[in-house]
C-alpha cells in the first residue's frame, strides 16, 4: 500500500508541472502584455500597479525565465496579493511587521466551498442511491420510467435557471428560505443550534443546485451498475441457495455495484468545484466560485491564477483519495496494487 501511495504521489509531479504549464500559457494568451488595456486591464490602473504586475510575473524577463520563476513560486504556494484595493494575499495569511495577520482570500473561501460540496455529495448519495436501486429493480416499469425521466430532466435543466425559479418560489412568493448570503443579519445573537439552523437554511438552495446534475448522473450510474451486477452468475447462485431478496440485492448486488462509484465521485470533483461558480455567484455565497467570478470580472490576475492552480491541485488530491479508497474497498485491486 505504501509503495502504491508513493508511486501515485510521484505521478502527481508531472501532472502538477502540466497544470503549471497550462496556467502559464493561459496568462500569455492575452494579446500583447496582460498589463495592457487590450487584455481588459482596467484602463484607469496607474502605471505603478502595471509595474507591480510586471514585477509579480517578471514580465520583463525572457519567457523561459518567467516560467521558471512562476514554477518556483507555485512550489512555495506563493500567489502574491490581490489587485483589489484591500490587497489581501491570494492564498494564505501573512503577518506584517507589527504582527497583524491578514487572512488569505482562498484560505477564507475554500472551507465554504468544501462544505457546500461535501453537503451536496451527501445529498447526492442519499437521494441517488435509493433512486438507482429502485430503478434497477423495477426495470422498464412505471417507477423506473419516472426516475429515468427525472434523470433526463436533471441532466438538461440549467442549474442557474432552476436556481432563479427556486429563489423566486421560496424567497419572493413565499418567505421560506433566505435567497442570498451565508448568514442572517442577526446570526451573532443566535445560540449554537440557532446558528446551525440559520446556516443550513442559507445553504439549502446552493447545496441542492450544485448537487443537481450529479444527482441525475449518479442515479443513472447506480441503475446501470445494478442491472449489470444483477445478471451475474453469483447473484443467481445467491438466489439459488435460498437467500432472501433483500440480502441478495443489498449485500451481494449493491455492494459490488457501488465499487466504481468511488472512482466516479473522485472524477466528479473538478465539476463540483467548477460548478460552484454559478451556484455561489447567484446566491452570493463567499466561496471559491464567487471569489473566482469576481476576480474574472475585475481581471484580478493573481487571484485567477491562484484559484486555477489550487483548484487543480485539489482535484489531483481528490483523485488520489478516490484511488486509495477504491484499493481499500476492493480486495482484488488491493492485492494487485501490493504485488
Amino acid at each position, binding site marked *: 500500500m505504501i509503495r502504491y501511495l508513493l508511486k501515485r504521489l510521484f505521478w502527481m509531479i*508531472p501532472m502538477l508541472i502540466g497544470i503549471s504549464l497550462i*496556467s502559464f500559457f*493561459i496568462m500569455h494568451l492575452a494579446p500583447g502584455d496582460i498589463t495592457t488595456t487590450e*487584455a481588459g486591464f482596467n484602463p484607469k490602473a496607474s502605471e505603478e500597479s502595471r509595474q507591480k504586475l510586471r514585477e509579480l510575473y517578471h514580465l520583463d524577463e525572457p519567457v523561459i525565465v518567467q516560467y521558471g520563476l512562476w514554477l518556483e513560486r507555485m512550489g512555495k504556494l506563493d500567489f502574491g496579493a490581490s489587485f483589489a484595493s484591500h490587497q489581501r494575499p491570494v492564498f494564505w495569511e501573512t503577518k506584517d511587521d507589527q504582527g497583524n495577520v491578514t487572512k488569505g482570500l482562498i484560505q477564507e473561501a475554500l472551507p465554504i466551498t468544501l462544505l457546500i460540496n461535501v453537503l451536496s455529495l451527501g445529498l447526492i448519495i442519499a437521494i441517488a442511491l435509493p433512486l438507482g436501486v429502485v430503478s434497477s429493480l423495477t426495470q422498464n416499469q412505471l417507477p423506473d420510467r419516472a426516475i429515468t425521466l427525472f434523470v*433526463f430532466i436533471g441532466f438538461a435543466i*440549467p442549474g442557474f435557471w432552476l436556481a432563479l425559479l427556486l429563489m423566486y418560489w421560496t424567497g419572493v412568493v413565499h418567505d421560506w428560505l433566505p435567497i442570498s448570503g451565508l448568514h442572517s443579519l442577526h446570526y451573532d445573537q443566535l445560540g449554537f443550534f440557532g446558528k446551525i439552523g440559520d446556516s443550513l437554511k442559507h445553504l439549502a438552495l446552493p447545496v441542492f443546485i450544485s448537487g443537481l446534475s450529479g444527482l441525475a448522473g449518479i442515479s443513472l450510474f447506480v441503475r446501470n451498475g445494478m442491472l449489470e451486477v444483477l445478471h451475474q452468475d453469483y447473484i443467481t447462485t445467491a438466489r439459488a441457495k435460498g437467500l432472501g431478496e433483500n440480502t441478495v440485492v443489498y449485500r451481494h448486488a449493491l455492494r459490488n455495484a457501488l465499487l466504481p462509484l468511488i472512482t466516479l465521485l473522485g472524477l466528479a470533483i473538478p*465539476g463540483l468545484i467548477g460548478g460552484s461558480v*454559478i451556484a455561489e455567484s447567484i446566491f452570493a455565497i463567499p466561496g471559491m466560485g464567487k471569489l473566482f467570478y469576481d476576480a474574472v470580472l475585475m481581471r484580478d490576475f493573481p487571484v485567477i491564477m491562484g484559484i486555477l492552480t489550487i483548484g*487543480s491541485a485539489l482535484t*489531483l488530491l481528490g483523485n488520489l483519495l478516490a484511488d486509495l479508497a477504491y484499493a481499500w474497498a476492493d480486495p482484488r485491486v488491493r492485492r494487485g496494487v501490493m504485488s
Partner: protein
Amino acid sequence: MRRDLVIKALSNPLALVGFVIILGILVVATLAPYIAPYDPNAIDVKAILLEPSALHYMGTDGLGRDVFSRMLYGARISLLVGIVAVGIATAIGVVLGALAGYYRGWIDVVIMRMVDVMLSIPTFFLILAVIAFLTPSIWNIMIVIGLTSWMGVTRLVRAEFLSLREREFVMASQTLGAKDRRLIFKHLLPNSLTPIIVSSVLGVASAVLIESGLSFLGLGVQAPQASWGNILTDGKEYIQFAWWLSLFPGLAILITVLGYNLLGEGLRDALDPRSANKNK
C-alpha cells in the same frame, strides 16, 4: 452512416423525439429573420416589461425589446456555439485519440498525460480564466469551449483504435501490406464512427449549457446580441416583476439540451449493440 442505420436509429422512440426537437430548433433558427415579428434589438421605451400578449407573444424586456424575437435569434446562437464548439473538440479529439491508439508507445503516453492534466483542471474555472485574459465574444466562447472539451473524445477514439487494431480484419489488411493511412482511414476510423457521433451529440448538449451559463454570468455572448443565457440575466434582474423573462429562455435551454441528450442516448441504444443488450 448507411441508410439502414439511420432508419434503425430513428425507429428508437427516444432518438426520434430528440431528432424532432433538434430539427424544430434548426428550422426556427434558420427562419428567424422571417418568423420574428420585431427586430430583436429594437428598443421601444413605450413597451417596457409588457406581459405576454397577442402583440408580444413572450412579453418584452427591460428595454422594451420583443422577447419572442430575441428568443428566435438566441436559438441561432445556441445552435452555432454548440455545433462549432463540438466540431473543434471532436476534430482535436479524433486526431489525438487516433495518434495515441494507433502508434501507442511514447506518443500515447504523452497524449494521455495531456488528457489527464486537462481533466484535473476544473473545466469551468479553465474556461472563465481563458475568457478573463481574452475578451468575451461569441467566437472566443466557441473556441474556448472546444479547446476545453476534447478529452472525452480522445479517450474514446484511442480505446476504439486499441481494440480494433487487434481485430482480425485489421490484422489481415495489415498483413496484405496496407499502409498506415489506409488502415486508419479505411478501417479504424469508419468503425469508430458510432461512438464518435454519439459523444458529439451529447457534447453539443453540454456546450449549449456552458454557453448559456457563461452568457448568464455576463461572460459569454455580449449584449445587444441576444442569447438565451443573457435574456436570463435580465430575468434575474426583474425576477420580482417579469416572470416571462425567466421562464421562456430557461425552458428553451431545457428542451434543447433534452433534445440533444435524447438523440445521443437513443443513437447509442440503436447503433451500439453492446449497450442495447445491456439496457434491455
